[in-house]
């Protein structure tokens, strides 16, 4: 029973982080329709920004976090302006490949600058975990869960409740018509990509201190982010959130009660199963024929 609860708590913490990762991607992949292969690199970037801010720049942990998020926003905007804007209207596979190229460059650049050795980000929380009912959870992870929850709520409110969010959705459903409504379509493109990037960076900045920071840390994160977005249904913030938790639960309990060698396979099998039963993810958009 203790063990079961411990698995559950672990899954909740992990799920929060996964959700955050998924939300950033659902903006870019789900709403903008860009298969963003830099998502992992942006996650890594957020972690390194956090590392730099809290070591080289000597910032306080709670100051370094927004710094890293803003840095992710800036890098996202830069990527959109230089790489995606000139290719607007190009095929989805073309932009995907450009993002693959950018991802390769970012990762190799990180390796070149920082070397391959993993870095640790100091955390201000006590090492000793919080214990209750035979279950332990570290303070840092608790903080990550809360911060992730706050960011998720923010994203949800922004996309579903504001004029900007509405303009975003409109633009990626029909850019020409959105322009006819007076939307500054170029700005929306840049803003959406930057926002999605900042969420990836936020995930990296939050998880950097939990884990360690190294150039390839984004690879697995990116694959999982894609899986989460798909599981929840494209473009849905709520879907990405739930998808994140579902994946975390599947992995945690798969590893705990089936076999740790197949830990990742559990997550993937769940995804295959869900998609076979509900081919448009958990939160499908309404469609019609004719």
């Amino acid at each position, binding site marked *: 029973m203790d063990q079961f609860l411990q698995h559950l708590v672990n899954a909740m913490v992990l799920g929060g982080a996964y959700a955050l990762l998924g939300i950033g991607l659902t903006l870019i992949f789900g709403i903008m329709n860009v298969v963003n292969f830099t998502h992992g690199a942006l996650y890594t970037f957020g972690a390194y920004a956090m590392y730099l801010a809290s070591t080289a720049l000597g910032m306080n942990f709670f100051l370094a976090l927004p710094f890293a998020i803003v840095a992710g926003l800036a890098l996202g905007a830069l990527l959109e302006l230089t790489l995606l804007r000139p290719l607007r209207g190009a095929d989805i596979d073309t932009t995907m490949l450009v993002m693959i190229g950018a991802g390769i460059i970012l990762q190799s650049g990180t390796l070149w600058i920082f070397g391959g050795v*993993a870095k640790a980000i100091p955390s201000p929380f006590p090492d000793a975990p919080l214990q209750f009912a035979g279950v332990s959870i570290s303070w840092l992870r608790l903080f990550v869960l809360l911060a992730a929850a706050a960011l998720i709520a923010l994203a949800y409110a922004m996309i579903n409740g504001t004029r900007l969010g509405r303009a975003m959705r409109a633009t990626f459903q029909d850019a020409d018509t959105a322009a006819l409504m007076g939307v500054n379509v170029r700005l929306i493109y840049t803003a959406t990509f930057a926002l999605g990037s900042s969420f990836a960076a936020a995930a990296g900045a939050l998880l950097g201190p939990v884990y360690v920071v190294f150039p*390839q840390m984004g690879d697995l994160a990116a694959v999982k982010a894609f899986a989460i977005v798909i599981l929840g249904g494209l473009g849905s913030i709520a879907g990405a959130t739930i998808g994140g938790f579902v994946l975390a639960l599947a992995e945690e309990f798969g590893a705990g009660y089936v076999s740790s060698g197949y830990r990742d396979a559990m997550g993937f099998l769940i995804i295959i199963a869900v998609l076979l039963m509900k081919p448009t993810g958990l939160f499908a958009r309404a469609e019609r024929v004719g």
Partner: protein
Amino acid sequence: EETVKIGVNQPLTGPFAASGAYVVNGAKIAADEINAKGGVLGKKIQLVIEDNKSNPTEAAAVAEKLITSDKTPVMMGAWGSSLTLAVMPKLEEYEIPMLVETSSSGKITTSGNPFVFRISPPSALEAEMFAPMVEKLGIKKVDFLVINNDWGRGAAADFGKMLKGKGVEVGLTETMDAAAQDMSAQLAKIKGTDADTIMITAAVDQLTLLFKQMAATGVKKRVVTTGGSQNPDQIVAQAGSAAEKTMHLTTFLPWSPDKTPDPKATEYFLAEWKKRGYPFAGTTESFRGYDGVRTIAAAIEKAGSVEPKAIQKAFWDVELTGLNGPIKFVKSGPEGKESGQSKPGVYLIEISDGQIAEVKL
């Protein structure tokens, strides 16, 4: 000016980039040291360093390039077992010997490739060296947590066999993906067993994460890590108090140079390492590159020529004291096609109050 070329096939990009770079840096120190003393056979050593991108296909391609384009008569490589195994058919094809500095898969020296000479211990050897310590530590029951590749799986199998032979109970064998960052599920499972010791095989980054996550999930058991890629200093720096009282089987003791088999060489190496501005933490990885090149140089010297055939033969006669003990190859694998395996020293160290010290039993 004519040089003696040594091919170095290491992962400089991709997931293993950090380790590969350390090995290369160690190799460079050795080459410079030898060259400063006049080189081998009166010629300077030239390292031809190539990146295998942590990818087996590339590792084979790199070997091909080193052998055919650069005409290196002998090589060192290729860090991971997958990478080394991928290179091995090339060695047979072109009849070029290779010194294996890091890989631990048993297959490397048992598959009948007479061009392979290994200075790193396969896990069976490591287990054998650890055997006498088992009782002294009072180990009764062990769970394994290993990386899911040949290295981790091999370690779990070989150590498990040794422990069972000594009457120690073996509990769970949990695995984790090489890229995994979150091992909380495995730890929650291990936390619930009655084993007194966890034996872990993983590289330093994952160990750091594991120790932090063990502290967070409240796992409090004896920890012994194996595999020689632990890099205890990095662990101390990054895992902090979470790494307290963890024990590590290592093949090199840079923390107490005076206790190494060749203190003078160790000190020289450490000083040079520091002079070049590399982090101290890298020494437990890089010393293998250093020893590897010194071993190759010794073989060339013995061979008296830079003919691959002669060098291959000469490897069998090499005898030198490496930073972690005597390097001397014994035969391993099917008769007539034996590979060479050297038996390095294995030490148990413990992290205590942020300090690293050898465990005296």
